[in-house]
């Protein structure tokens, strides 16, 4: 028997629903994702820390879960909301139902609400804090809790998802932890790959690591609080800035690290990594009304003028107009709302995108950016200079 549950938003709107996995009470920002496939990747994406996710596609759980389609070692969302949970999954790779998967992670999953109504509400009113509970079904009480919850703005969530110790990623998995103070050659020992890349982990998705490794890179993942000096000491060929959760303006220590690395090593950033670079170059970020989360966002590469269909997951955006450096080049543009999706620099070897070329979930159209990173490490020149 499914348990009754209630979602209350900070503006007092409530949605009765039923728990299909777990129970309890959780406060988080409520956001929606429009991808029709890839719920397991969404669940395990660290960028969703502090958020509960509504899937706009109504039928979720269809193909179960498996040990491969994970983007981190844990379920990261605060809670998961769907229209109709599918209890009997069918797929040759499925090893566990979504219900079992969420319950094993202790994450609340609910169904039976009008997810389209909720999505429209968020689109019209903007992103909101909410509380989802199986314990407190009183709308007034739950709304009050939602209003009191901290929310995302100004909160550093990176510290909750970054690795505590550096590690080497070899053969598609975490190979070993390393001591960054140790002998650099020992740290880089093992694995295949021509390029040495340090990935600054603000909540990195595994598929980024898989894509980097597939491009002939030896990957060393370091905690977000690693300093520029510590990174420079490892003498990598390039530095990668990862995706991550929360308000980019709250992650000042990473911005400082990045600023110190500018011009030192070629830098490639994705998502929060892009926002870190944007701030390091003097720009500011702002919160989007309800964010971009899905697998169908059109982005134009302004260098080739070709359109790529991209995977996105961000609630904040770099304001291009606030970047004082005249050498900064806008390289990618969102064709839906004309917001900034990518940057480069005429002189410093760096580039970054707001969206997810590693996909997972989503289309592979932007996979070429990993090649662009290799080329930048090869030439030492920024892509925009070419």
């Amino acid at each position, binding site marked *: 028997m499914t348990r009754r549950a209630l979602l209350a938003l900070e503006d007092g709107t409530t949605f009765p629903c039923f728990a299909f996995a777990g129970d309890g009470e959780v406060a988080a920002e409520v956001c929606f994702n*429009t991808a029709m496939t890839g719920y397991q990747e969404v669940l395990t994406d660290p960028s969703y820390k502090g958020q509960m996710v509504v899937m706009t*596609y*109504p039928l979720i759980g269809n193909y179960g879960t498996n040990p491969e389609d994970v983007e981190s070692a844990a379920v990261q969302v605060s809670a998961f909301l769907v229209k*109709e949970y599918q209890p009997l999954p069918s797929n040759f790779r499925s090893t566990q139902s979504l219900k079992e998967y969420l319950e094993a992670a202790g994450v609340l999953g609910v169904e039976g609400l009008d997810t*389209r109504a909720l999505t429209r509400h968020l689109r019209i009113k903007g992103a909101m804090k909410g509380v989802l509970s199986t314990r407190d079904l009183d709308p007034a009480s739950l709304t009050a809790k939602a209003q009191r919850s901290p929310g995302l703005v100004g909160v550093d969530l990176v510290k909750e998802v970054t690795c505590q110790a550096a590690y080497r990623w070899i053969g598609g998995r975490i190979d070993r932890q390393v001591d960054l103070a140790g002998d650099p050659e020992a740290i880089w020992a093992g694995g295949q790959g021509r390029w040495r890349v340090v990935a600054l982990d603000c909540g990195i998705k595994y598929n980024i690591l898989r894509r980097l490794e597939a491009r002939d890179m030896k990957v060393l993942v370091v905690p977000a609080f690693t300093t520029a000096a510590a990174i420079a000491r490892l003498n990598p060929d390039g530095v990668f800035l990862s995706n991550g959760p929360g308000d980019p303006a709250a992650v000042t220590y990473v911005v400082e690290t990045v600023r110190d690395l500018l011009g030192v090593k070629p830098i490639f950033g994705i998502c929060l990594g892009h926002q870190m670079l944007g701030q390091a170059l003097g720009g500011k970020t702002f919160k989007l009304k309800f964010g971009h989360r899905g697998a169908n966002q059109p982005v134009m590469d302004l260098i080739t003028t070709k*359109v790529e269909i991209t995977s996105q997951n961000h609630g904040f955006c770099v304001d291009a107009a606030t970047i004082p450096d005249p050498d900064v080049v806008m390289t990618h543009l969102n*064709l839906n709302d004309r917001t900034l999706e990518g940057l480069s620099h005429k002189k410093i070897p760096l580039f970054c995108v707001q969206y997810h070329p590693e996909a997972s979930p989503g289309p*592979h159209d932007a996979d070429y950016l990993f090649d662009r990173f290799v080329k930048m490490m090869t030439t030492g020149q920024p892509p925009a200079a070419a």
Partner: protein
Amino acid sequence: MPKRDDLKKIMIIGSGPIIISQACEFDYSGTQAIKALKEEGIQVVLINSNPATIMTDPEMADRTYVEPITPEYVVEVLRAERPDAILPTLGGQTALNTALMVARTGILEELGIEMIGATPAVIEKAESRELFRAAMANIGLKVPESAICHTIAEVLAAARRIGYPLVVRPAFTLGGTGGGVAYNREDLEAIASAGLAASLTNEVMIEQSVLGWKEFELEVMRDRKDNVVIICSIENLDPMGVHTGDSITVAPAQTLTDREYQVMRDAAIAIMREIGVETGGSNVQFAINPADGEMVVVEMNPRVSRSSALASKATGFPIAKMAAKLAIGYTLDELPNDITKETMASFEPTIDYCVVKVPRWAFEKFPGAQDVLTTSMKSVGETMAIGRTFKEALQKGLRGLEIGRAGLIGDGKDPDPASLTPDLLREKLRTPNSLRIFWVAQAMRAGMSDQEIFDLTWIDPWFLANIRQLVDFQAELSTCRAWGELVDPLTSLDEGLLRRAKQWGFSDRQLAAALGCDELAVRRRREKLGIRHTYKLVDTCAAEFEAYTPYFYGTYETEDECRAGERRKVMILGGGPNRIGQGIEFDYCCVHASLALRELGIESIMVNSNPETVSTDYDTSDKLYFEPLTFEDVLNIIASEKPEGIIVQFGGQTPLNLAVPLYKAGAPILGTSPDAIDRAEDRDRFRDLLKKLGLRQPANATATSVDQAVAIAEKIGYPVVVRPSYVLGGRAMEIVYDQAALMHYMATAVQASPDHPILIDKFLEDAIEVDVDAVADGQSCVVAGIMEHIEQAGVHSGDSACVLPPHTLTPDMIDEIRSATHALAFELGVKGLMNIQFAVKDNLLYILEVNPRASRTAPFVSKATGIPWAKVATKVMVGHSLKDQGILAEARPGHISVKEAVFPFVRFPGVDPVLGPEMRSTGEVMGIDSNLGLAFAKSQIAAGQVLPTSGTVFISVKDQDKPAVAPVARKFHRLGLDIVATTGTHAALTAQGIPSRLVQKVSQGRPHVVDAMKNGEVQLVINTAEGKDPQSDAYQIRRAALERGLPYITTIAAAKATVDAVEALLKSDHLSVTPLQDYYRG
């Protein structure tokens, strides 16, 4: 990249008549494309022989050629019009094949015409199995192991190498005609020889069977900057082995992880690039092994298709419109998304509902055809349903099918549980058939496990799990009834259960059947509990952006997005899924109704469930409700929208059947009153009506028993027409010539009883049948068109060729027809369209039937006269008199228009292709010219009949036709054609001094006439002999003609018309082509 400015005039090729596998989806795509090009200031030239299309409306294209779609006619149009380019990707396989043949003539180079959308090289690469295979190998994609064969010997050799079962796929055919699955050598020889004959290139592919693999389709678009997007993914519920047109399909794909989906997406994009489709839409089909995920490419179509029409309706993304814009040079990022306005077309639609398409078949129309589904498509139509759950969409789809089911299960139509033996169930599950989905539910009800059902059907366990939820829920409902019998069954149904029932798509009728109450009681109960329908938008973006296009579906949610405004508004009920007897002609009328309302500034609200149509295009009407046409679903929309009127006259029988229940529920029905409709349909009231007006009808009576039937037939005199009173569209209607035949009919076809009387009419032998369409407004009545049939009365009016204006009727008879029409219109108080079928025998006029509604011929008459009669009728219905509209007198065109029917017999092996009172044609074509001979010739050519201007005519007629056939034979002889004839006919011709060669009947030993036909020694067959026995000469000749594609004539009237047509073709030194616009200018 903005549009190319060197393209000022573009020719579009349509798809011709509606046939199985090529239906109104190509009118939908062509219409969109024409609008899209005209919007850009491009002049559009169109060729399409199908008069029932919106695309051939004179105000659509600039130059509209209603001419046969053959390379010869296309070349003539190209010479006359000199377009800059030809766009062949919007008219289905017909347009693609024709364009390819046109390109091979070298005319395009000669006139400097470019082929856009798909070049000949692209078409060949996608369509030729060999080239396609090589292309897939190039990009590292797997295709099933296969061999290309041109002879039976090659086929058998390939079979030894690949092993059985095997799939046979002919190259260059429509909808897999001639294809099939062979489990042994015998099957293989039969299927492959038919396939070789059906293929334009005499080529079949023998292919490793991937039977039972999961089947997926992706709809892909590419622009000339190489931007590629996937519009929609589709998963087939019926796995590989059933043609996708015959499969229940679901959008989006349900059982692929993102990883697998992206592999498929990458493959589809690679295929677009490798095949070289520069701009436009394509469809790519994949099969996936459910055990390990192995993926193979099944095929790709470099054009818009039935699936792309479905994808457009399923997502709201107008693929054909975009394909047209891309073809003239735009790129996706330059084209706005109409629905959101603020975003661009360069994105991938995402949906927040589930879409289910269910095909509709017509096996009952083809006695002898097996209800078995294979890789050769057999369905004649489809319905689409949208729901927030798969269960809801599936059940909406099944009730939208209009086959008498109110859902999957528990609607009172389930078979008796005692009859569900394991053997029966296994048989019904193992061999795919038109009712398999219902059998799956019944098997579950009978206790069969999902595993066993999967083993028999290979239907994915996810679908089975959802179906089982419905079956289990139904069982739960039945317990409510058991409880409820103590009290009120409805009160035992609590809010939670009822809400779940509605969210899972249970109709009120299903619930009523489960609870043992009536449908309206369920409705009242749920209204009391606050369980009301809501409407959601189809918006391409899952609510991420605001949508401006009001395209709705119904569901049971908390938020209702319906935007009922205060404007004057009128609702139009469409025709639902296409079926034989109710197809594009009715959709045409519905679209015109909508256009007329919009012209008058009245909001038009369309309700329909057919994804193939123009009526379900989101910009045809002010609002579109994509919903099943059932009493419950329509009443829901009426409750939300409160229209001032409802038009039920235009969608065929479907809305007409709803007229009375809706009227009783208080809905405002526009136009002719439901009572007048009843007066025309009820036999007794109709007889009184004619009596009152002093009009004549063939002697008739009603029988409720066999004895009574025999007595009536004796009294009236044979031959008589017999039919059950409770079915429509000529179902089970037969002409019987003697008592033995009557007894046989009564014993096999129908069961006469007081509840189900049999209607018996005198059959008027050799009468001329006449169809009249008219419009009346209460004050005046104007005849729209008088059509004289070429076949005698007895052939269903939808199946016979007809001529406008009449070619043999006397002016006095035409006057009499006109006054009878006026009298009927006034007496019935017709407001809108009406159709009357007359018969003329011995210079006496008989009334056969009166239909106070739009008829199948309304579009033909509109095209022939240049007046949009359905629009005129719509305006009448909302209060604009004929006089106000300036419609004062009958149109009298100076040209001749001929309508000819097109049949699907070739799809049904073993079926007798004889015409009778039961309609079996799927579509129609029109031939127009200045004289009857040429107009008839064009209609025949357009219908696929290759009229010979030299060679040999085979003639065999029954004794009574022997005098009449002589002039026909003499004319053939004079025109230089040879004649062969069987004994009796040969003797009769010889006596008249007409030379002919004697050929043996089949029964006389070999070599006989069928041998001659198979050897290509006969080019035209005239055979009026009857004979239904498969052993009879007549049957064997009919079947042989069908399989060889020889023109086949069964009546003297048609033979006369044909010889005149051959003469006209021989006399004209070139093919004449003229656009409608010039005909109307006069």
